[in-house]
């Protein structure tokens, strides 16, 4: 399964946090630093879990693997990441 950022989501980055608006659900989400890094790596691409994790390790070593899994699952539940 590959995942990508939903085209219905818009991200704004601020000094203290990143905020995502999902216009499909009309909900706003505050994203922590780890999440912002994962979204930054994913960008507009479509990737498998493994590809995404490899890339995250490459750019941001030190992120907790379990934290990444939990974040991705959360994003899928909230329709911010979608299957592609």
């Amino acid at each position, binding site marked *: 399964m590959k995942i990508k950022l939903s085209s*219905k989501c*818009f991200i*704004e980055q*601020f000094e203290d*946090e990143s*905020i995502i608006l999902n*216009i499909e659900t*009309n909900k*706003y989400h*505050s994203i922590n630093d780890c999440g912002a890094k994962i979204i930054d790596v994913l960008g507009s691409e479509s990737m498998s879990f493994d590809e995404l994790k490899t890339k995250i390790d490459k750019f941001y070593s030190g992120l907790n693997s379990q934290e990444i899994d939990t974040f991705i699952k959360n994003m899928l539940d909230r329709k911010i990441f979608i299957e592609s």
Partner: protein
Amino acid sequence: MIYRYFFSNKLIQSDIKWPFLPSSTSKSTPDINISLDKSIFPKKDINNSRDYYVINMKKSIIHLKNKAYIEISDSGKKISVNIFQDKIDDTLSYKIANQIIPYSVYMQGGFVLHASCITALDGCILFVGRSGTGKSTLASSFLDKKILSEDFVSLEESGGDYLAYPTIPFSKISSNIITKFGLNNSKNIKLDNDFRARNLVEINNFEHTPKKVLHCFFLNWGDRFSISPLPSHEKISHLLESTYNAFPLGSCPQSSKNIFNKISEFIRRVKVSKIARKKDLDFSNNQNILDSIS
């Protein structure tokens, strides 16, 4: 007869005389046309027992119970009004100025907030907050400052700053505040159906020129006076509640996206803080508010 007005940085043309709107002699193409249309009525299936609003960027409808039915179309440029009473009363005229025109500005892509605005230093400050948090009262308590707008403020980006545009020189406040501050009571207008029985009072010290926004304060009640910073998500949340936006909220995805962009830009450029204060008429901390402006 055609009337022309200049209000909140918009040139308005109408075949109806609106008492609260400031006249204009400009011959330019109007930004907003307001016309009487006796052929439009609310749909029969809507609840006619109270005011009714459906707002989005394409077409908005507003039914002011027993007063008027209003449609805003053509991306906010056209306002059609069917008036259900013999003459235009102050409440309807006030609502045209402070509700209908702001919605029209929003539909044209403008950024409009429910806020009170006073002059400070070389610019102005905004007081934003839910209904009943004392925005108008606090603004009126700065007796040596001018009021630039009441109830709503239209903001436009200009060279990296935000300009706030003056609205109408009337404030919606309760009679005990009028007495406390010794405000001008000569033109005191009673509004129909105002749930806090407030009156409209003409503002003597009104600022007629747009000013740069220096700071935006969210008002809230608390145990004691404090001014504190806010995380970005709270700034966005508070501003969303205060923005002229689609109604029901979230019913127009295009609008949600536009407002998100506008609010994000605003909080990057304008300092936003929270003021907590006791629910009383003590304004001894007003100087602290002015001192906190950066």
